[in-house]
Protein backbone atom coordinates (compact mmCIF):
# COMPACT_ATOMS: atom_id res chain seq x y z
CA UNK A 1 0.00 0.00 0.00
CA UNK A 2 1.05 3.58 -0.48
CA UNK A 3 2.22 5.69 2.42
CA UNK A 4 -0.14 7.11 4.99
CA UNK A 5 -0.02 10.89 5.03
CA UNK A 6 -2.73 11.66 7.55
CA UNK A 7 -3.76 9.73 10.59
CA UNK A 8 -6.66 10.85 12.73
CA UNK A 9 -7.34 9.13 16.03
CA UNK A 10 -10.23 9.73 18.40
CA UNK A 11 -10.67 13.30 17.18
CA UNK A 12 -13.20 15.48 18.99
CA UNK A 13 -13.88 19.17 18.54
CA UNK A 14 -15.99 21.42 20.71
CA UNK A 15 -16.71 21.88 24.36
CA UNK A 16 -17.13 19.16 26.91
CA UNK A 17 -20.91 19.17 26.75
CA UNK A 18 -21.43 20.51 23.27
CA UNK A 19 -19.32 18.48 20.87
CA UNK A 20 -19.35 19.39 17.19
CA UNK A 21 -17.43 16.26 16.26
CA UNK A 22 -16.82 13.19 18.40
CA UNK A 23 -14.53 10.20 18.15
CA UNK A 24 -13.33 10.39 14.55
CA UNK A 25 -10.86 7.70 13.39
CA UNK A 26 -9.55 7.52 9.84
CA UNK A 27 -6.38 7.68 7.78
CA UNK A 28 -5.59 9.03 4.34
CA UNK A 29 -3.00 7.60 1.95
CA UNK A 30 -0.95 9.58 -0.50
CA UNK A 31 -2.93 10.09 -3.68
CA UNK A 32 -6.35 9.50 -2.14
CA UNK A 33 -9.31 11.64 -3.06
CA UNK A 34 -11.42 11.72 0.07
CA UNK A 35 -14.91 13.16 -0.13
CA UNK A 36 -16.50 14.26 3.11
CA UNK A 37 -20.27 14.12 2.96
CA UNK A 38 -22.96 14.86 5.48
CA UNK A 39 -25.92 17.13 6.15
CA UNK A 40 -25.63 20.82 7.01
CA UNK A 41 -24.19 21.38 10.47
CA UNK A 42 -22.59 17.94 10.52
CA UNK A 43 -19.19 19.42 11.32
CA UNK A 44 -17.57 19.07 7.89
CA UNK A 45 -15.99 22.53 7.77
CA UNK A 46 -15.07 22.23 11.44
CA UNK A 47 -13.21 19.02 10.64
CA UNK A 48 -11.18 20.89 8.00
CA UNK A 49 -10.34 23.66 10.41
CA UNK A 50 -9.20 21.14 12.98
CA UNK A 51 -7.07 19.32 10.38
CA UNK A 52 -5.41 22.62 9.52
CA UNK A 53 -4.74 23.37 13.17
CA UNK A 54 -6.88 26.50 13.11
CA UNK A 55 -9.05 25.47 16.06
CA UNK A 56 -8.33 23.52 19.22
CA UNK A 57 -9.24 19.84 19.33
CA UNK A 58 -8.95 16.69 21.38
CA UNK A 59 -7.37 13.50 20.07
CA UNK A 60 -4.64 13.04 17.50
CA UNK A 61 -4.10 14.56 14.07
CA UNK A 62 -0.86 13.39 12.51
CA UNK A 63 0.26 14.68 9.12
CA UNK A 64 3.31 13.23 7.39
CA UNK A 65 6.40 15.42 7.61
CA UNK A 66 7.10 18.33 5.25
CA UNK A 67 3.78 18.40 3.49
CA UNK A 68 2.61 21.47 1.69
CA UNK A 69 -1.08 21.79 2.45
CA UNK A 70 -3.33 24.23 0.61
CA UNK A 71 -6.79 25.19 1.69
CA UNK A 72 -9.75 26.74 -0.07
CA UNK A 73 -12.30 27.85 2.51
CA UNK A 74 -16.00 27.69 1.85
CA UNK A 75 -17.10 30.45 -0.44
CA UNK A 76 -16.71 33.72 1.38
CA UNK A 77 -17.85 37.14 0.44
CA UNK A 78 -15.41 39.89 -0.32
CA UNK A 79 -16.34 43.49 0.23
CA UNK A 80 -17.10 45.01 -3.20
CA UNK A 81 -15.24 48.13 -2.10
CA UNK A 82 -12.05 46.36 -1.09
CA UNK A 83 -9.21 47.99 -3.03
CA UNK A 84 -7.33 44.85 -4.01
CA UNK A 85 -6.79 43.49 -7.51
CA UNK A 86 -6.88 39.82 -8.46
CA UNK A 87 -3.19 40.04 -9.34
CA UNK A 88 -2.26 41.54 -5.96
CA UNK A 89 -4.26 38.86 -4.19
CA UNK A 90 -2.57 36.03 -6.08
CA UNK A 91 0.83 37.63 -5.62
CA UNK A 92 0.47 37.32 -1.86
CA UNK A 93 1.71 33.81 -2.58
CA UNK A 94 4.86 35.42 -3.99
CA UNK A 95 4.78 34.00 -7.48
CA UNK A 96 5.66 35.27 -10.89
CA UNK A 97 2.90 36.64 -13.12
CA UNK A 98 3.65 33.90 -15.67
CA UNK A 99 2.81 31.21 -13.10
CA UNK A 100 -0.38 33.00 -12.16
CA UNK A 101 -1.47 33.21 -15.78
CA UNK A 102 -0.74 29.50 -16.32
CA UNK A 103 -2.74 28.47 -13.28
CA UNK A 104 -5.68 30.70 -14.17
CA UNK A 105 -5.71 29.34 -17.69
CA UNK A 106 -5.73 25.76 -16.48
CA UNK A 107 -8.84 26.69 -14.51
CA UNK A 108 -10.53 27.98 -17.63
CA UNK A 109 -10.56 31.58 -16.53
CA UNK A 110 -8.76 32.71 -19.65
CA UNK A 111 -9.05 30.73 -22.79
CA UNK A 112 -6.08 30.21 -25.05
CA UNK A 113 -8.36 30.21 -28.08
CA UNK A 114 -8.13 33.94 -28.51
CA UNK A 115 -5.61 35.49 -30.80
CA UNK A 116 -2.42 36.59 -29.17
CA UNK A 117 -3.36 40.18 -28.84
CA UNK A 118 -6.83 39.80 -27.41
CA UNK A 119 -5.68 36.97 -25.17
CA UNK A 120 -3.22 39.32 -23.60
CA UNK A 121 -5.98 41.83 -23.21
CA UNK A 122 -8.18 39.31 -21.43
CA UNK A 123 -5.43 38.37 -19.02
CA UNK A 124 -4.78 41.97 -18.26
CA UNK A 125 -8.45 42.44 -17.72
CA UNK A 126 -9.03 39.83 -15.04
CA UNK A 127 -5.73 40.39 -13.25
CA UNK A 128 -6.33 44.10 -12.95
CA UNK A 129 -9.88 43.71 -11.69
CA UNK A 130 -10.92 44.35 -8.15
CA UNK A 131 -11.30 41.05 -6.32
CA UNK A 132 -14.66 42.12 -4.93
CA UNK A 133 -16.05 42.73 -8.42
CA UNK A 134 -15.72 39.12 -9.56
CA UNK A 135 -18.80 36.98 -9.98
CA UNK A 136 -19.28 34.09 -7.57
CA UNK A 137 -17.91 31.57 -10.03
CA UNK A 138 -14.92 33.70 -10.98
CA UNK A 139 -14.06 34.32 -7.36
CA UNK A 140 -14.23 30.63 -6.58
CA UNK A 141 -11.87 29.85 -9.46
CA UNK A 142 -9.47 32.55 -8.34
CA UNK A 143 -9.51 30.99 -4.86
CA UNK A 144 -8.75 27.60 -6.36
CA UNK A 145 -5.94 29.14 -8.40
CA UNK A 146 -4.66 30.63 -5.16
CA UNK A 147 -4.60 27.18 -3.58
CA UNK A 148 -2.80 25.59 -6.53
CA UNK A 149 -0.16 28.30 -6.97
CA UNK A 150 2.50 26.81 -4.75
CA UNK A 151 2.14 23.21 -5.97
CA UNK A 152 0.78 21.70 -2.78
CA UNK A 153 0.98 18.02 -1.84
CA UNK A 154 -2.44 18.09 -0.25
CA UNK A 155 -5.49 20.13 -1.14
CA UNK A 156 -8.36 20.78 1.23
CA UNK A 157 -11.43 22.03 -0.59
CA UNK A 158 -14.54 23.15 1.23
CA UNK A 159 -17.33 22.89 -1.36
CA UNK A 160 -15.08 23.71 -4.29
CA UNK A 161 -17.84 24.40 -6.76
CA UNK A 162 -20.33 26.32 -4.67
CA UNK A 163 -21.69 29.15 -6.78
CA UNK A 164 -20.27 27.84 -10.03
CA UNK A 165 -22.45 26.94 -13.00
CA UNK A 166 -22.72 23.35 -14.22
CA UNK A 167 -20.16 23.64 -17.02
CA UNK A 168 -17.72 25.33 -14.70
CA UNK A 169 -18.22 22.59 -12.14
CA UNK A 170 -17.20 19.97 -14.72
CA UNK A 171 -14.07 21.96 -15.57
CA UNK A 172 -13.05 22.20 -11.95
CA UNK A 173 -13.63 18.55 -11.12
CA UNK A 174 -11.83 17.47 -14.28
CA UNK A 175 -8.95 19.68 -13.21
CA UNK A 176 -8.92 18.08 -9.79
CA UNK A 177 -8.91 14.68 -11.45
CA UNK A 178 -6.01 15.73 -13.64
CA UNK A 179 -4.03 17.08 -10.67
CA UNK A 180 -4.69 13.87 -8.84
CA UNK A 181 -3.58 11.71 -11.73
CA UNK A 182 -0.60 13.73 -12.93
CA UNK A 183 0.90 14.82 -9.65
CA UNK A 184 -0.51 12.15 -7.38
CA UNK A 185 -1.94 14.99 -5.34
CA UNK A 186 -3.95 14.07 -2.27
CA UNK A 187 -7.30 15.80 -2.18
CA UNK A 188 -9.81 16.15 0.64
CA UNK A 189 -13.05 17.73 -0.39
CA UNK A 190 -16.37 18.53 1.14
CA UNK A 191 -19.25 17.99 -1.23
CA UNK A 192 -23.01 17.91 -1.18
CA UNK A 193 -23.22 16.19 -4.50
CA UNK A 194 -23.19 12.39 -4.29
CA UNK A 195 -22.77 12.16 -8.07
CA UNK A 196 -19.45 13.93 -7.74
CA UNK A 197 -18.46 11.64 -4.90
CA UNK A 198 -19.14 8.57 -7.02
CA UNK A 199 -17.36 9.97 -10.02
CA UNK A 200 -14.20 11.35 -8.43
CA UNK A 201 -13.60 10.11 -4.90
CA UNK A 202 -11.49 7.12 -3.97
CA UNK A 203 -12.76 7.24 -0.41
CA UNK A 204 -15.76 8.74 1.26
CA UNK A 205 -16.16 9.82 4.85
CA UNK A 206 -19.76 10.17 6.02
CA UNK A 207 -19.92 12.61 8.87
CA UNK A 208 -22.77 13.64 11.07
CA UNK A 209 -21.09 14.80 14.27
CA UNK A 210 -19.66 11.29 14.43
CA UNK A 211 -18.28 9.06 11.73
CA UNK A 212 -21.07 7.13 10.04
CA UNK A 213 -18.93 5.40 7.45
CA UNK A 214 -15.51 5.43 5.80
CA UNK A 215 -14.39 3.50 2.72
CA UNK A 216 -14.73 3.38 -1.05
CA UNK A 217 -17.93 5.01 -2.33
CA UNK A 218 -19.37 1.81 -3.72
CA UNK A 219 -18.91 -0.16 -0.50
CA UNK A 220 -19.92 2.36 2.12
CA UNK A 221 -22.58 4.46 0.44
CA UNK A 222 -25.30 1.90 0.96
CA UNK A 223 -28.91 2.83 1.65
CA UNK A 224 -28.74 2.21 5.37
CA UNK A 225 -25.73 4.41 6.04
CA UNK A 226 -27.18 7.14 3.83
CA UNK A 227 -30.40 6.96 5.77
CA UNK A 228 -28.44 7.18 9.00
CA UNK A 229 -26.39 10.06 7.64
CA UNK A 230 -29.21 12.19 6.34
CA UNK A 231 -31.85 11.04 8.80
CA UNK A 232 -33.70 8.89 6.27
CA UNK A 233 -34.39 11.84 3.99
CA UNK A 234 -31.92 11.11 1.24
CA UNK A 235 -34.01 10.66 -1.84
CA UNK A 236 -31.02 9.87 -3.97
CA UNK A 237 -31.05 6.13 -3.53
CA UNK A 238 -34.36 4.37 -3.24
CA UNK A 239 -34.14 0.98 -1.73
CA UNK A 240 -36.77 -1.59 -2.30
CA UNK A 241 -35.69 -4.43 -0.17
CA UNK A 242 -38.97 -4.91 1.58
CA UNK A 243 -39.74 -8.42 2.69
Amino acid at each position, binding site marked *: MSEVILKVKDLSVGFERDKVITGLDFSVNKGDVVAIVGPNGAGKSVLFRALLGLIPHFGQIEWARDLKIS*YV*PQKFSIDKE*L*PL*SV*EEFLKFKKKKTADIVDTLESLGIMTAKHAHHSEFHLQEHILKQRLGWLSGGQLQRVLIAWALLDNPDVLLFDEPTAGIDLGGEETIYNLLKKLHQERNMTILLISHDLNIVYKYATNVLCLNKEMICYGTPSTVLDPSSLAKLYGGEAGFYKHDRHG
Partner: protein
Amino acid sequence: MAAKPDFINMIAMDNSLLLQLIIGILIGLSAGYVGSFMVLRKMSLVGDALSHVALPGIAIALLMNINPFFGAFTALLLAILIIWFLEKKTELPSETLVGIMFTLSLALGLLLTPEPELLEALSGDITKVTFFDLWLTLALSMVIIWTLKRIADNLMLGIISKELAMSLKIPIHKINFIFLFLAAFIVALGIKVAGTMLTGSLVIIPAAAAKNISVNLSQYSKWALIFGALSAAAGLLSASYFDISPGPTIILSAGMIFLGTLVFKK
Protein backbone atom coordinates in the same frame (compact mmCIF):
# COMPACT_ATOMS: atom_id res chain seq x y z
CA MET B 1 -3.67 82.86 -8.62
CA ALA B 2 -2.41 85.85 -6.68
CA ALA B 3 -2.42 83.77 -3.51
CA LYS B 4 0.46 81.61 -4.72
CA PRO B 5 3.31 84.10 -4.31
CA ASP B 6 1.70 85.11 -1.02
CA PHE B 7 2.06 81.58 0.32
CA ILE B 8 5.66 81.37 -0.79
CA ASN B 9 6.43 84.67 0.91
CA MET B 10 4.58 83.48 3.97
CA ILE B 11 6.73 80.35 4.24
CA ALA B 12 9.93 82.17 3.40
CA MET B 13 9.35 84.81 6.02
CA ASP B 14 8.29 82.43 8.73
CA ASN B 15 10.71 79.71 9.78
CA SER B 16 8.20 78.38 12.24
CA LEU B 17 5.66 77.83 9.46
CA LEU B 18 8.22 75.87 7.46
CA LEU B 19 8.87 73.68 10.49
CA GLN B 20 5.15 73.18 10.97
CA LEU B 21 4.72 72.27 7.32
CA ILE B 22 7.46 69.65 7.40
CA ILE B 23 6.10 68.10 10.60
CA GLY B 24 2.51 68.32 9.39
CA ILE B 25 3.26 66.67 6.05
CA LEU B 26 5.25 63.87 7.70
CA ILE B 27 2.38 63.18 10.09
CA GLY B 28 -0.14 63.45 7.26
CA LEU B 29 1.77 60.86 5.23
CA SER B 30 1.93 58.28 8.00
CA ALA B 31 -1.59 59.01 9.24
CA GLY B 32 -2.92 58.40 5.73
CA TYR B 33 -1.05 55.13 5.37
CA VAL B 34 -1.97 53.74 8.80
CA GLY B 35 -5.52 54.99 8.27
CA SER B 36 -5.81 53.08 5.01
CA PHE B 37 -5.65 49.82 6.93
CA MET B 38 -7.80 51.09 9.78
CA VAL B 39 -10.55 51.82 7.27
CA LEU B 40 -10.24 48.33 5.76
CA ARG B 41 -10.33 46.77 9.20
CA LYS B 42 -13.53 48.70 9.91
CA MET B 43 -11.78 50.50 12.74
CA SER B 44 -12.76 54.04 11.77
CA LEU B 45 -14.47 54.71 15.06
CA VAL B 46 -11.79 52.90 17.02
CA GLY B 47 -9.34 55.44 15.62
CA ASP B 48 -11.56 58.22 16.87
CA ALA B 49 -11.93 56.64 20.29
CA LEU B 50 -8.19 56.04 20.52
CA SER B 51 -7.45 59.72 20.17
CA HIS B 52 -9.73 60.48 23.11
CA VAL B 53 -7.99 57.89 25.22
CA ALA B 54 -4.86 59.99 24.89
CA LEU B 55 -6.35 62.90 26.84
CA PRO B 56 -5.81 61.61 30.39
CA GLY B 57 -2.28 60.64 29.33
CA ILE B 58 -1.62 64.18 28.16
CA ALA B 59 -3.08 65.56 31.38
CA ILE B 60 -0.85 63.43 33.55
CA ALA B 61 2.20 64.35 31.45
CA LEU B 62 1.37 68.04 31.80
CA LEU B 63 0.92 67.68 35.56
CA MET B 64 4.28 65.90 35.76
CA ASN B 65 5.83 68.49 33.48
CA ILE B 66 7.00 66.09 30.76
CA ASN B 67 6.44 66.14 26.97
CA PRO B 68 2.72 65.42 26.41
CA PHE B 69 3.61 63.08 23.53
CA PHE B 70 4.94 60.50 25.96
CA GLY B 71 1.86 60.74 28.18
CA ALA B 72 -0.42 60.33 25.18
CA PHE B 73 1.61 57.41 23.86
CA THR B 74 1.55 55.58 27.20
CA ALA B 75 -2.22 55.92 27.48
CA LEU B 76 -2.64 54.77 23.88
CA LEU B 77 -0.38 51.80 24.39
CA LEU B 78 -2.56 50.69 27.27
CA ALA B 79 -5.67 51.14 25.15
CA ILE B 80 -4.35 49.12 22.21
CA LEU B 81 -3.25 46.33 24.53
CA ILE B 82 -6.85 46.05 25.72
CA ILE B 83 -8.24 46.17 22.16
CA TRP B 84 -5.73 43.60 20.94
CA PHE B 85 -6.50 41.26 23.80
CA LEU B 86 -10.22 41.54 23.12
CA GLU B 87 -9.80 40.95 19.38
CA LYS B 88 -7.72 37.88 20.11
CA LYS B 89 -9.86 36.37 22.83
CA THR B 90 -13.31 37.06 21.44
CA GLU B 91 -14.97 37.36 18.09
CA LEU B 92 -17.18 40.05 19.61
CA PRO B 93 -17.12 43.47 18.06
CA SER B 94 -15.03 45.56 20.42
CA GLU B 95 -17.37 48.51 19.80
CA THR B 96 -19.13 48.52 23.14
CA LEU B 97 -16.00 48.37 25.19
CA VAL B 98 -14.23 50.92 23.03
CA GLY B 99 -17.27 53.17 23.40
CA ILE B 100 -17.16 52.91 27.17
CA MET B 101 -13.41 53.27 27.35
CA PHE B 102 -13.38 56.40 25.26
CA THR B 103 -16.02 58.34 27.15
CA LEU B 104 -14.51 57.34 30.49
CA SER B 105 -11.07 58.54 29.47
CA LEU B 106 -12.52 61.73 28.03
CA ALA B 107 -14.24 62.42 31.35
CA LEU B 108 -11.07 61.63 33.27
CA GLY B 109 -8.98 63.74 30.90
CA LEU B 110 -11.31 66.75 31.16
CA LEU B 111 -11.06 66.64 34.95
CA LEU B 112 -7.29 66.16 35.05
CA THR B 113 -6.11 68.53 32.33
CA PRO B 114 -5.13 71.96 33.67
CA GLU B 115 -7.56 74.57 32.36
CA PRO B 116 -5.10 76.65 30.26
CA GLU B 117 -3.84 73.59 28.36
CA LEU B 118 -7.23 72.02 27.83
CA LEU B 119 -8.13 73.71 24.55
CA GLU B 120 -4.70 72.97 23.16
CA ALA B 121 -4.99 69.31 24.12
CA LEU B 122 -8.43 69.09 22.55
CA SER B 123 -7.80 70.80 19.25
CA GLY B 124 -4.03 70.64 18.91
CA ASP B 125 -1.53 73.40 18.38
CA ILE B 126 1.18 72.78 15.87
CA THR B 127 2.31 76.41 16.05
CA LYS B 128 4.23 75.53 19.21
CA VAL B 129 6.41 72.82 17.66
CA THR B 130 10.14 72.70 18.33
CA PHE B 131 13.12 71.10 16.62
CA PHE B 132 12.84 68.19 19.01
CA ASP B 133 9.35 67.57 17.59
CA LEU B 134 10.81 67.61 14.10
CA TRP B 135 13.36 64.88 14.84
CA LEU B 136 10.82 62.84 16.78
CA THR B 137 8.29 63.08 13.97
CA LEU B 138 10.85 62.33 11.29
CA ALA B 139 12.12 59.23 13.08
CA LEU B 140 8.70 57.92 14.01
CA SER B 141 7.08 58.47 10.61
CA MET B 142 9.90 56.62 8.97
CA VAL B 143 9.53 53.73 11.39
CA ILE B 144 5.74 53.70 10.94
CA ILE B 145 5.79 53.73 7.13
CA TRP B 146 8.62 51.21 6.85
CA THR B 147 7.08 48.77 9.33
CA LEU B 148 3.62 49.03 7.86
CA LYS B 149 4.96 48.40 4.37
CA ARG B 150 6.60 45.22 5.65
CA ILE B 151 3.45 43.82 7.26
CA ALA B 152 1.00 45.19 4.66
CA ASP B 153 0.56 41.95 2.67
CA ASN B 154 -0.11 39.79 5.69
CA LEU B 155 -2.35 42.40 7.23
CA MET B 156 -4.39 42.51 4.05
CA LEU B 157 -4.68 38.72 3.92
CA GLY B 158 -5.96 38.75 7.48
CA ILE B 159 -8.57 41.32 6.43
CA ILE B 160 -9.75 39.17 3.50
CA SER B 161 -9.97 35.97 5.50
CA LYS B 162 -8.54 35.14 8.86
CA GLU B 163 -8.73 31.44 8.02
CA LEU B 164 -6.89 31.82 4.75
CA ALA B 165 -4.14 33.77 6.49
CA MET B 166 -3.89 31.28 9.34
CA SER B 167 -3.77 28.35 6.94
CA LEU B 168 -0.62 29.95 5.51
CA LYS B 169 0.84 30.02 9.02
CA ILE B 170 0.83 33.81 9.11
CA PRO B 171 1.16 34.91 12.76
CA ILE B 172 -2.00 36.94 12.55
CA HIS B 173 -2.21 37.99 16.19
CA LYS B 174 1.35 39.26 16.09
CA ILE B 175 0.68 41.18 12.89
CA ASN B 176 -2.45 42.72 14.41
CA PHE B 177 -0.52 43.73 17.48
CA ILE B 178 2.19 45.44 15.46
CA PHE B 179 -0.49 47.25 13.51
CA LEU B 180 -2.28 48.51 16.63
CA PHE B 181 1.09 49.61 17.97
CA LEU B 182 1.63 51.69 14.82
CA ALA B 183 -1.87 53.11 15.23
CA ALA B 184 -0.99 54.21 18.77
CA PHE B 185 2.19 55.89 17.47
CA ILE B 186 0.44 57.84 14.76
CA VAL B 187 -2.41 58.97 16.99
CA ALA B 188 0.09 60.14 19.61
CA LEU B 189 1.94 62.09 16.91
CA GLY B 190 -1.21 63.40 15.31
CA ILE B 191 -2.45 64.96 18.54
CA LYS B 192 0.24 67.61 18.19
CA VAL B 193 -1.36 68.64 14.91
CA ALA B 194 -5.07 68.07 15.34
CA GLY B 195 -5.65 67.53 19.06
CA THR B 196 -7.45 64.68 20.74
CA MET B 197 -10.81 65.62 19.25
CA LEU B 198 -9.75 65.66 15.61
CA THR B 199 -6.85 63.23 15.24
CA GLY B 200 -9.17 60.35 14.50
CA SER B 201 -10.34 62.18 11.39
CA LEU B 202 -6.79 62.91 10.27
CA VAL B 203 -6.21 59.17 10.23
CA ILE B 204 -9.51 58.15 8.68
CA ILE B 205 -10.61 60.79 6.14
CA PRO B 206 -7.63 60.70 3.73
CA ALA B 207 -7.86 56.90 3.64
CA ALA B 208 -11.61 56.97 3.05
CA ALA B 209 -11.04 59.41 0.19
CA ALA B 210 -8.33 57.18 -1.29
CA LYS B 211 -10.65 54.19 -1.14
CA ASN B 212 -13.17 56.04 -3.28
CA ILE B 213 -10.86 56.25 -6.27
CA SER B 214 -8.68 53.12 -6.02
CA VAL B 215 -9.08 49.75 -7.69
CA ASN B 216 -6.03 48.09 -6.19
CA LEU B 217 -3.94 48.13 -3.06
CA SER B 218 -0.95 49.99 -4.44
CA GLN B 219 -3.12 52.83 -5.76
CA TYR B 220 -4.97 52.91 -2.48
CA SER B 221 -1.84 53.20 -0.34
CA LYS B 222 -0.38 55.82 -2.66
CA TRP B 223 -3.49 58.02 -2.59
CA ALA B 224 -3.90 57.66 1.19
CA LEU B 225 -0.33 58.92 1.65
CA ILE B 226 -0.84 61.78 -0.81
CA PHE B 227 -4.20 62.87 0.62
CA GLY B 228 -2.83 62.77 4.17
CA ALA B 229 0.08 65.02 3.24
CA LEU B 230 -2.11 67.28 1.13
CA SER B 231 -4.67 67.78 3.92
CA ALA B 232 -1.93 68.72 6.37
CA ALA B 233 -0.25 71.14 3.97
CA ALA B 234 -3.47 72.81 2.79
CA GLY B 235 -4.79 73.08 6.35
CA LEU B 236 -1.60 74.59 7.74
CA LEU B 237 -1.23 77.12 4.93
CA SER B 238 -4.82 78.27 5.09
CA ALA B 239 -4.72 78.52 8.89
CA SER B 240 -1.61 80.63 8.70
CA TYR B 241 -3.08 82.76 5.90
CA PHE B 242 -6.32 83.46 7.73
CA ASP B 243 -4.63 83.42 11.13
CA ILE B 244 -6.86 80.73 12.63
CA SER B 245 -6.27 77.45 14.45
CA PRO B 246 -4.69 74.81 12.13
CA GLY B 247 -6.25 71.65 13.64
CA PRO B 248 -9.75 72.28 12.28
CA THR B 249 -8.54 73.59 8.90
CA ILE B 250 -6.50 70.43 8.34
CA ILE B 251 -9.54 68.26 8.98
CA LEU B 252 -11.72 70.50 6.81
CA SER B 253 -9.18 70.21 3.98
CA ALA B 254 -9.31 66.43 4.32
CA GLY B 255 -13.10 66.63 4.23
CA MET B 256 -12.99 68.66 1.02
CA ILE B 257 -10.68 66.11 -0.60
CA PHE B 258 -13.10 63.38 0.44
CA LEU B 259 -16.02 65.20 -1.17
CA GLY B 260 -13.93 65.71 -4.31
CA THR B 261 -13.15 62.00 -4.59
CA LEU B 262 -16.84 61.12 -4.40
CA VAL B 263 -17.17 62.55 -7.90
CA PHE B 264 -14.64 60.02 -9.25
CA LYS B 265 -15.84 57.13 -7.09
CA LYS B 266 -14.97 53.72 -8.56
